[in-house]
């Protein structure tokens, strides 16, 4: 019998201070088999992967047994002998495509170097170069040898990484979240490529990810890790259909977001008057947000012109939950900045909460837009209207933002109480909250909103780093809601969170939107998230809206080809659509 591509027995990883990070993990990958290793942050999955190649940080120690192919007991080998195996018997693809390649060396040389390092009979330079060229062609980058990494996109760099990893036909490929940093459509292509190449070579694959749907698509068997231990393993079909361990069940449940209850027949919702919000609706209300033919052009250094938005139009009714879906570069973030008055459009009309932020007729020539000064975005031009600072202030009082990165959006040197109270310091933001003028009044408002987002009482006096990602996102939501805005705009609010927390934060947003009669604009790269939360959706691509309509209708009958591409590219769990 041929030895397994990978055999791990009782792998334990400890820190210098004797904390156990990986606890007696055992798993095997048969030759040519594709095994998924799943877990959330801190589960020890990446450390397990690094142990296989002997790439652990120096102050971590690994014990147990690791065999790769016919090579036994890798953990006991000295660096030099391990190095000979790395890149030839076993290789690895990492998560961060942006930093994983040497920025000063052309990619062709980097691939050739891997060939040369293990050259069968010392491959000559010319041979290595030719082999590198054919490898780059194989990963779909013909003629890219002379490119520097920064000239390639994330997906292209990941292809280069794959070319390097498979250069010497290893028996095992370890891939650590190789597509997490990529757009969905790019992820689909990279996964497809990796699958094909691995199958063609008969390479065993250990695929590490947090995304169950990706595992379902790529792998035959799955290993679930939690807190450094393996809690369950088995064939993908079995585990996903009939999970034994409670944690697997939780993960599976959280990974599948049910679509929003079909209230889609009546997209304009009825606002329930609550104790917190006075009914402000009048018959036939104007839209909460209206964008008409909005364009935005940025001028980069070196005369490079970027058309971030190429004429988008959309209406969001008061109380509606509106989703914007798009990949990086689609213009969704630019749209957000315009809505919040943080930026001014090149042309078009923007109304938010009854205030006209901008109404600019399209410029006659492409160069007529003056260079924008970031801090006072409202440079005036003849024949245009842009709102003055008072109007912008009104909009900002009515529209608040929740950001993607739960750490970066909170000032690390301020307590949660001060962070949440900050918007109240602006008189314009508290016109309906006179109590916000005093310190005591602000404290009461902060307490109230912290309770509303489900944070404990003592949260106010603590600092952001004392909270988990999900809790920090709650703080962020509390800050956005403390001034009782009418519109809440959330930019990828859950994409940096673990799956198990994701659903909780989304449901909190939904509940708060209902309770407070908020208009919710949700920006996401993930169709499923939007489908879970939103009544209507706009699909954006390259600065344009390619399709918009009720979420279920767009989901079930996408009219634009790109929407279908996006849908097809999104990995789904089997039997759970």
């Amino acid at each position, binding site marked *: 019998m041929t030895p397994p591509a990978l055999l791990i027995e009782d792998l334990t990883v400890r820190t210098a201070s004797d904390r156990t990070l990986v606890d007696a993990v055992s798993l095997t990958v048969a030759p040519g088999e594709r095994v998924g290793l799943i877990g959330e*942050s801190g589960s020890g999955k990446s450390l397990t992967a690094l142990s296989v190649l002997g790439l652990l940080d120096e102050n971590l120690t690994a014990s147990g047994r690791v065999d790769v192919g016919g090579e036994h007991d890798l953990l006991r080998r000295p660096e030099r002998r391990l190095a000979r195996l790395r890149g030839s018997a076993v290789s690895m693809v990492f998560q961060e495509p942006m930093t994983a390649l040497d920025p000063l060396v052309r990619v062709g040389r980097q691939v050739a170097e891997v060939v040369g390092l293990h050259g069968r009979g010392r491959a000559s330079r010319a041979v290595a170069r030719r082999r590198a060229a054919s490898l780059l062609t194989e990963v779909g980058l013909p003629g890219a040898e002379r490119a520097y990494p920064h000239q390639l996109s994330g997906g292209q760099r990941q292809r280069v990484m794959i070319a390097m990893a498979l250069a010497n036909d290893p028996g095992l490929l370890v891939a650590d979240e190789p597509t997490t940093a990529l757009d969905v459509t790019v992820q689909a292509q990279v996964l497809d490529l990796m699958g094909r190449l691995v199958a063609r070579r008969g390479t065993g694959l250990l695929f590490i990810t947090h995304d169950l749907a990706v595992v379902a698509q790529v792998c035959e068997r799955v290993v679930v890790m939690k807190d450094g231990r393996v809690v369950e393993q088995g064939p993908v079909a079995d585990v996903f259909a009939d999970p034994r361990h409670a944690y697997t069940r939780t993960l599976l449940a959280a990974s599948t977001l049910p679509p929003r209850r079909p209230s889609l027949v009546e997209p304009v919702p009825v606002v329930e008057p609550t104790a917190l919000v006075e009914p402000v609706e009048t018959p036939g209300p104007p839209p909460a947000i209206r964008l008409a033919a909005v364009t935005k052009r940025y001028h980069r250094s070196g005369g490079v012109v970027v058309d971030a938005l190429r004429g988008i139009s959309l209406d969001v009714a008061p109380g509606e939950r509106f989703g914007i879906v798009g990949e990086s570069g689609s213009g969704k973030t630019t749209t957000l900045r315009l809505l919040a008055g943080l930026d001014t459009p090149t042309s078009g009309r923007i109304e938010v909460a009854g205030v006209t932020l901008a109404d600019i007729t399209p410029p006659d020539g492409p160069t007529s837009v003056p260079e924008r000064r970031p*801090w006072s975005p409202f440079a005036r031009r003849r024949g245009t209207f842009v709102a003055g600072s008072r109007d912008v202030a009104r909009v900002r009082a009515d529209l608040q933002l929740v950001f993607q990165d739960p*750490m970066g959006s909170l000032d690390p040197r301020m307590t949660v109480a001060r962070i949440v109270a900050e918007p109240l310091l602006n008189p314009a933001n508290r016109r309906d909250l006179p109590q916000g003028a005093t310190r005591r009044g602000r404290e009461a408002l902060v307490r109230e909103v912290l309770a509303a987002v489900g944070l404990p009482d003592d949260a106010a006096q603590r600092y952001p780093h004392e909270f988990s990602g999900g809790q920090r996102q709650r703080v962020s939501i509390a800050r956005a809601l403390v001034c009782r805005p009418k519109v809440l705009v959330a930019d990828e609010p859950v994409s940096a969170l673990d799956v198990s927390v994701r659903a909780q934060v989304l449901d909190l947003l939904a509940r708060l939107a209902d309770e407070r009669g908020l208009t919710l604009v949700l920006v996401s790269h993930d169709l499923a998230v939007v489908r879970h939360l939103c009544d209507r959706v706009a699909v954006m691509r390259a600065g344009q809206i390619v399709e918009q309509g009720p979420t279920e209708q767009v989901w079930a009958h996408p009219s634009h080809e790109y929407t279908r591409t996006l849908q097809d590219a999104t990995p789904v769990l089997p039997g759970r659509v």
Partner: protein
Amino acid sequence: MSEAATVGPRRRPGVHPQLVIGAVLVALVVVVALVSFAWTPFDPIHAVPADRLQGPSAQHWFGTDRFGRDVLSQLMVGARITLYVGVVAVGIAAVVGIPVGVVAGMRGGVPGAALMRGADVLLAFPGLLLAIVFGAAFGAGTTTAMVALGIGAIPAFARVARSGTLQVMRTDYVLAARAANRPAWAIAWRHVLPNIAGIAVVQASVNFGLAVLAEAALSFLGLGTAPPTPSWGRMLQDSQQFLGTYDYLAIAPGVAIAVAVLGFNLLGDGLRDVLDPRLLGRRR
């Protein structure tokens, strides 16, 4: 954040040898300077020709110079000038440089670039050269030296403040504050300054060491503090004619300078380790 980063080595807070040694050395210099106001073993200025050029002894720990003045007493009083020059020079540099950097970082565009270009022209004049130029134009002395060293250090502070400000301005919490319509001064005061305070303190500490070195060099050239006020640099200069015979005259002030500079450098490095990672750690 990657998994490896969260489990990577993390320094225990509190125990930080560089910080502790640096703080102790700086404290030593400060205490000696303070004590010298109240007490020195001998009058540092009064010449006693009978006691000239005595080696270290129980009475004169570090010996006496060519006029019979006690070296230890001179060192103690010299610490005052050293600290005085350092404080004023760093103060000038920080008070001018940090606002320039913050404004340049927050405004960007033409005004920001112009501010930084202005500061960068100063880079063509290393502090010591500027001090010599000022000394030539306005007469050498303690005041000239510290003003010149201060002006010379402005670009260092401006650059550090600007890069810190740019980092803070890119964060979502500044975006959140802007979305809450907070004015620019409030963002500068509540978000930017507290978050760049750490790197500014580090810069101050490092520049303090540089100012001490530069002041000593100026005094060594005879372009610093005027006699008879004792200063470490001039003591070294005076020792030159006795090299090979009375080396302690050079070693005592030399070690004093090195101790002071080492103290501030270690303090700066220690503070960097303690304060800086939080700012840098948020980049990802």
